[in-house]
């Protein structure tokens, strides 16, 4: 069963050109809007007003800020690696723009007299393409951090890339379940497969993992450790100014839109009308109406980003990485195995769903029992004191009772009359 992508790659050159220009325009305008929206929403959450002077509701504030930013003095530090320093923001911004080429905005429509899908292009590996371009985008940040010739930038760049790579693993694993259910990696096919039921409803664990990973992937609060002001000044873009900084800024906001669009496409039915509106009104999924649903869903995710930023404090870096590697990725792996098993069994059709549930119940009980037995056995295991110099090497002796395992012992506070309850 090959992917049916026959409607792509048939467009006239001017249609392709117009679509590309439209995507560029949409992304730039969306960025300007999102900055304004973020400031307004966060302001409301903090009982302020936010930008409200320039244009209606202060909508033109970001435009004015952008122009001012572009006209500022462009400083290249003396210790910078000139070529790479200029190249880094360009890589970052380009990668951010390219990703949107495979995002489906809507169904096949009449586009200035041409029948064409509202999507620049599609390929059998479109979602993998998004991941690939995202990993190229990380280069912009790493190189920007390195080429600035500053310690803050270097540390920020390293933090940022380590974080993005770690959370890209969790993100990729969360997508596997969607591939299994859609039977395809092309974005248009995945949207088509969600005609009746969104994958966000069937594959809730994947959806949750993806949503956590997408916040980590875009370096947004509460995972904005690369830009932790108290520790790293501005992170990887500490030394950047003027238009180069603007490019990084643009890339960050476009990436936010990209992961939101990907979440919409993969989990919330893409451009399909929400709440089964199309059952009541068939026209909801035809023509240009889907654009409304699509951007509405993107805005929902962007609002989620802003909400998180307005509510949560920043995580500590080691806790954040431990969460990614020790919680998210193992959970994602177990979930993939479960989905693959259920999918294989139900596709074969050899097993009744009731038996499947009974099997899962027995397995769960079995693992629960194992969990307790394993704990008991380990507690009884007495470690003999290690030899002072095993193998004749002059290594320091182990503490009595063997190496220390796990975290520190739970803390017990001595109650003292000098300590009052109020001192912090």
């Amino acid at each position, binding site marked *: 069963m090959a992917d049916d992508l026959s409607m792509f790659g048939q467009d006239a050159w001017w249609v392709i050109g117009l679509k590309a220009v439209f995507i560029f325009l949409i992304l730039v305008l969306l960025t300007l809007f999102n900055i304004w929206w973020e400031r307004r929403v966060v302001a409301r959450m903090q009982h302020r007003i936010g930008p409200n002077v320039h244009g209606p509701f202060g909508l033109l504030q970001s435009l004015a800020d952008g122009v001012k930013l572009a006209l500022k003095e462009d400083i290249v530090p003396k*210790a910078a690696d000139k070529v790479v320093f200029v190249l880094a923001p360009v890589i970052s911004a380009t990668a951010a723009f390219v990703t949107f080429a495979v995002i489906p905005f809507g169904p096949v429509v009449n586009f200035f007299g041409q029948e064409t899908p509202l999507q620049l292009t599609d390929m059998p590996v479109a979602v993998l*393409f998004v991941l690939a371009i995202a990993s190229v985008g990380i280069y912009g940040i790493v190189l920007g951090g390195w080429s600035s010739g500053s310690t803050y930038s270097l540390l920020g760049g390293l933090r940022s890339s380590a974080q993005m790579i770690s959370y*890209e693993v969790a993100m990729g694993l969360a997508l596997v379940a969607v591939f299994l259910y859609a039977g395809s990696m092309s974005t248009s096919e995945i949207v088509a497969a969600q005609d009746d039921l969104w994958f966000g409803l069937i594959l809730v664990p994947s959806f949750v993992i993806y949503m956590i990973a997408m916040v980590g992937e875009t370096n947004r609060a509460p995972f904005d450790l690369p830009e932790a002001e108290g520790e790293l000044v501005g992170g990887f873009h500490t030394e950047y100014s003027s238009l180069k900084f603007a490019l990084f800024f643009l890339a960050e906001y476009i990436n936010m839109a990209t992961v939101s669009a990907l979440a919409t496409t993969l989990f919330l039915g893409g451009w399909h009308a929400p709440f089964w509106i199309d059952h009541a009104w068939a026209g909801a999924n035809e023509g240009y109406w889907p654009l409304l649903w699509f951007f509405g869903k993107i805005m929902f995710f962007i609002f989620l980003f802003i909400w998180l930023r307005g509510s949560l404090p920043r995580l500590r870096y080691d806790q954040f990485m431990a969460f990614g590697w020790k919680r998210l990725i193992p959970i994602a792996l177990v979930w993939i195995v479960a989905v693959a098993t259920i999918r294989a069994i139900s596709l074969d059709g050899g097993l009744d769903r009731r038996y499947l549930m009974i099997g899962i119940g027995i397995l769960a009980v079995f693992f629960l029992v194992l969990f307790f037995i394993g704990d008991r056995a380990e507690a009884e295991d007495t470690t003999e004191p290690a030899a002072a110099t095993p193998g004749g090497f002059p290594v320091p002796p182990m503490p009595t009772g063997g190496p220390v395992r796990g975290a520190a012992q739970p803390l017990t506070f001595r109650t003292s009359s000098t300590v009052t309850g109020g001192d912090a």
Partner: protein
Amino acid sequence: MIAFWILAPIMTIAALGILFVRKAVHAALLLAVVMISLAILYAALDAPFLFAVQIIVYTGAILMLFLFVLMLVGVDASDSVVETIRGQRVAAMIGGLLLGLVLVIGLGQISLGTAVGLDEANDAGNIQALANILFSHYVFGFEVTSALLITAAVGAMVLAHRERLTPKSTQTSLAAQRVRDYAEKGTHLGPLPTPGVYARHNAVDTPALLPDGTPSEASISRVLVARGTVRSAPALADDITVIEGQIGGAPHAGRQSEAPATTTETTPATGGDHQ
């Protein structure tokens, strides 16, 4: 064919650049150019899965690991041209020439059939066809490779593993330790003072001033002290009489009288802490 004629010169130049650039990071970047060009060639040759995987695995993961190591080596680290092993350069040249000769002779012997493309292989879809042969004909090789990779990963973890001698300190235990130090040794409980507090400048090399006017040692980095680039507070106070004279001379003149005072200040020496 167009893709080939555009990408082939780029790849060749980038590959030669890897050999000739001085900075290791630049070489890694040029390697990325070669890898991405290769990926685009795969895409042009009807192998989209290989295209995506090439970028994700090689450019996104492996080369990024290289970059991490290179960046931590040092910002300005360039290749040294000093020969560390005698005769190494000559031996390398001879070896390279021999390898080239073997390759030219070897490749000259084979004859390639006409290219048939992947149309037939991709008939059922590129990914589906790939999955079909990977999980039927080559399933053993696939499993063995994954076992090898898992073994390597576990091996790396075992090699990097270290038995803990002391319990890992948590945020609570560190806080308790701080309070204990304060109770027993009188160590200051709060954070260290920031540089430049109550001093003339707030640069990192200017110590903060205590209420009695003496500089606080805790406010500056030990590294700067060891380098000897810390500025002393009295050295900044030598023009106090000048400023006092200006302020006293024109007490109501406002900003205009202060302007000469700010120009006499020396700009903070950034003292070699760029890196």
